[in-house]
């Protein structure tokens, strides 16, 4: 989902940066506040960041014959709320932009918006919705993580379509082209991300039930089950 350095027109680059900045700022505040109130959650926040580090480094092959990577933002979005993931995603993207020439400084705002804003917000909303619908815990986590991942790539496709509309078919035709590259490739990877997130969550529920209960991520019955 990395839009390469320089590949967004100046206006779009600035626009997406302005759109992402408040999320990163608000996320930083929410993380600071939480660590001050509950310093014991610092390690778990590290796990959320580490998970994003791992998953976004894994470039996996897909049935479309190209490679892409999962995002790993669903885990943290469910644990700490979507806002916390904006600065964490921004750190990962900055690391890759500066050291790896993967993504870029000028496209950082747009990439933060897709991976660290839309993905986590979608994941957290889907998780909450799944819980209200009384879906089982594992299934809720799976849906949240995999759909959050997929929506990140749909967002990237939309960002590129807005910047490069098709001369004939306009934004819609261009969106289809970019979505074929990104979103279609992403489907098996999103499923993988869903499974990996559930595996980590199963471990957390088993060994850290107290923390998760305090954070209102799981209910007492789910810990027992």
């Amino acid at each position, binding site marked *: *989902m990395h*839009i*390469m*350095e*320089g*590949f967004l027109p100046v206006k779009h680059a600035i626009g997406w940066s302005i759109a992402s900045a408040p999320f990163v700022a608000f996320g930083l505040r929410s993380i600071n506040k939480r660590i001050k109130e509950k310093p014991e959650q610092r*390690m*778990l926040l*590290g*796990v959320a960041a*580490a*998970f*994003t*580090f*791992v998953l*976004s480094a*894994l*470039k*996996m*092959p*897909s*049935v*479309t*014959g*190209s*490679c*892409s990577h999962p995002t790993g933002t669903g885990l943290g979005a469910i644990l700490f709320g979507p806002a916390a993931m904006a600065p964490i995603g921004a750190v*990962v993207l900055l*690391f*890759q*932009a*500066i*050291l*790896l*020439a*993967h993504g*870029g*400084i*000028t496209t950082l705002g747009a990439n933060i918006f897709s991976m660290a804003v839309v993905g986590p917000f979608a994941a957290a909303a889907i998780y909450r919705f799944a819980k209200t619908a009384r879906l089982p815990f594992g299934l809720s986590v799976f849906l949240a993580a995999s759909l959050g991942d997929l929506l990140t790539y749909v967002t*990237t496709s939309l960002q*590129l379509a807005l910047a*490069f*509309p*098709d001369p004939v078919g306009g934004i819609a035709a261009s969106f289809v*082209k970019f979505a074929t*590259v*990104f979103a279609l*490739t992403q489907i*098996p*990877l999103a*499923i*993988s991300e869903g499974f*990996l997130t559930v*595996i*980590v969550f*199963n*471990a957390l529920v*088993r*060994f*850290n039930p107290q923390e998760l209960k305090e954070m209102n991520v799981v209910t007492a019955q789910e810990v027992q089950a």
Partner: protein
Amino acid sequence: MKRHQNLLMMIAVVVLVAVPLWMVHKPAPGPDGKDVEIFRGADDQAKDVISQLAPGYHPWFKPLMEPPSGEIGSLLFALQAALGAGFIGYYLGMSVTRARMRREFDKEAQC
């Protein structure tokens, strides 16, 4: 049951990664004799789509630093994954031990 479920999910991930490798075949070189690459990065392919849609577009900014070779690039990606995995492993290991010690402590307290 839970352990069973985790194992099945891990196998599913491996299968999801392995199946494309086996399913996608390298097409024959095109009429221009150029070798067709498979399993390129989707980010790179997006670049191709951009040059199709807007042939006149030139990127207006260059990466500040580029890994000098593909090897160095994979070194940094491996480092990124290793740091993350290392931390998760440390935390889970710590949690397992803590949970066990808690259980033992409770048992002793009951005696």
